[in-house]
């Protein structure tokens, strides 16, 4: 029986009304009673359109945002009850890759500085000296398909696909178990997307990572994920095995979404 690594229990998030010059803005219910459980070693896909609450949920898991109600547990520990030191240790084990590889790397830092930064921040756990950190950065770069010759380069010298690889290397630097992938391929060309998706599959097999994959691209989710949850306007609409949802969607929303998905259908051959 696999154990859950991440449990989201009845999480709600309401953004409070703000007072402005012209009166009060309305409250926004970003998440409404969402419960999800992610097992160790699986790829869990969270699908939602814009404004569905995906981002709020991701930020809550990273503890960059506090839910209004409900709990988020990582390996059974409630995030809300962690001390700041424990929270910092947790950050080493839960990492994230963002959507836009052009915006998520500091343009003023070299690749070496970018990839070694998590090791530096978590040096109390990792205990690496400067040389060892560089070695590990080089190792991580070759793991994601780049090389040690890239260490002294700056982000602007890389293409989108390569930048996303650097982001993945950075995310792996602190030795995480859970990787949040926030639309990691939607800013990339299909040919590059295929490479990054393959890299993610390969890394998961090698390192035994758990993926929490957030996307609006159903084809990518179907390709990568074992289980899928659909979220619409802050509510969980449907959850289940990937094949089940794609072959026999139950909710109207899932049916609509799968129907709207643009696909290259090659009649006749299924090679």
């Amino acid at each position: 029986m696999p154990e859950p690594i991440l449990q989201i229990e009845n999480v709600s998030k309401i953004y409070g009304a703000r007072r402005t010059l012209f009166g009060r803005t309305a409250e926004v219910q970003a998440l409404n009673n969402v419960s999800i459980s992610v097992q160790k070693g699986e790829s869990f896909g969270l699908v939602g359109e814009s404004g569905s609450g995906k981002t709020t949920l991701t930020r809550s898991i990273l503890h960059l945002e506090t839910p209004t109600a409900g709990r988020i547990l990582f390996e059974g520990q409630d995030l809300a009850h962690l001390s700041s030191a424990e929270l910092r240790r947790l950050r080493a084990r839960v990492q994230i890759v963002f959507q836009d590889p052009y915006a998520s790397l500091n343009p003023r830092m070299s690749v070496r500085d970018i990839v070694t930064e998590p090791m530096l921040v978590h040096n109390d756990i990792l205990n690496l000296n400067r040389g060892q950190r560089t070695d590990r950065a080089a190792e991580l770069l070759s793991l994601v398909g780049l090389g040690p010759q890239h260490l002294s380069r700056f982000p602007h010298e890389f293409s989108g696909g390569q930048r996303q690889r650097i982001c993945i290397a950075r995310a792996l630097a602190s030795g995480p178990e859970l990787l949040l992938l926030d639309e990691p391929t939607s800013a990339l060309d299909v040919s590059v997307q295929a490479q990054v998706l393959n890299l993610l599959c390969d890394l998961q097999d090698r390192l035994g990572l758990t993926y929490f994959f957030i996307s609006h691209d159903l084809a990518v989710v179907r390709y990568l994920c074992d289980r899928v949850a659909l979220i619409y306007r802050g509510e969980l609409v449907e959850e289940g095995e990937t094949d089940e949802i794609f072959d026999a969607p139950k909710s109207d929303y899932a049916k609509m979404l799968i129907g709207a998905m643009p696909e290259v259908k090659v009649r006749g051959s299924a090679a």
Partner: protein
Amino acid sequence: MSETAQTSEVEIPRPADDRLRRALFRFRQSKLSMLGAAVVAIVLFFTAFGTILAPYPEHVAGAVDTANRFQPPSLTHPFGTNELGQDVLSLVMAGATVSVLAGFGVVLIGTLIGTLVGAVAGFVGGWTDEGLMRLTDLTLTIPSLILAMAIAAALGPGFTNMVIAISLSWWPGYARLVRGEVLAAREEVYVTAARAIGANPSRILFRHILPNVVSPIIVKMSLDMGFAILTVAGLGFIGIGVRPPTPEWGTLLSLSRSYMPDYWWTAMAPGMAMFFAVFGFNLLGDGLRDILDPKARR
């Protein structure tokens, strides 16, 4: 365009200063920027060596030659002589040192104070932000020349006091600029990424935010240089800046005022020097803005 070399084999090795070369290339595209840079280079040259190169160093030191007062421009005195018979060209050349250094000092101190206030306000936010920015607004409401005059009057005239006086009225612009830039940079994805890694606030501020707001600060510094030189000269003109005999453009202009228009050349040279310095720094600043603009980079 964004897709350059994907695999390591096809990559062209690039020197680390590639970005600088590109910036220089873009800078050279604009003739006005180049003109600005050239003018600034000349001004800086005289700032460094004006005193040494002056044809009549004894006049710079304060010697007078009353026999030759109010000589019109000639080969021996290209810009004529003043009421004390001193060579105007020599005074203006030497005056560059004081005027430009004072301007630079003002901009530098203003930048340091302003960046500190703005960065803290933008990064910490909340009541700290409110407090610091209201203080900034308060300083802005006082006309800078009047404030500088008041401070100079309190501290007494002199080079250092003048620089301090102007600086204290100079920083609010930087505070506002830096606060805005910090607020914007704080929302960048790489800053969120750093927070997700677990980096502490000081690391985020000094490693991720401040290095990315340097460009607009440099541009503003360059654009402000001209105005700072003018302000320094303004204080000199009204007599609370540098005291004669130390040559300074504003003071020189102020002294020549009473001999206008008959001995126009005494005002001509310091005025032109100021004009060129301000003009050059403004053109340079515009050029720098073009190449350092964060939207044009990427």
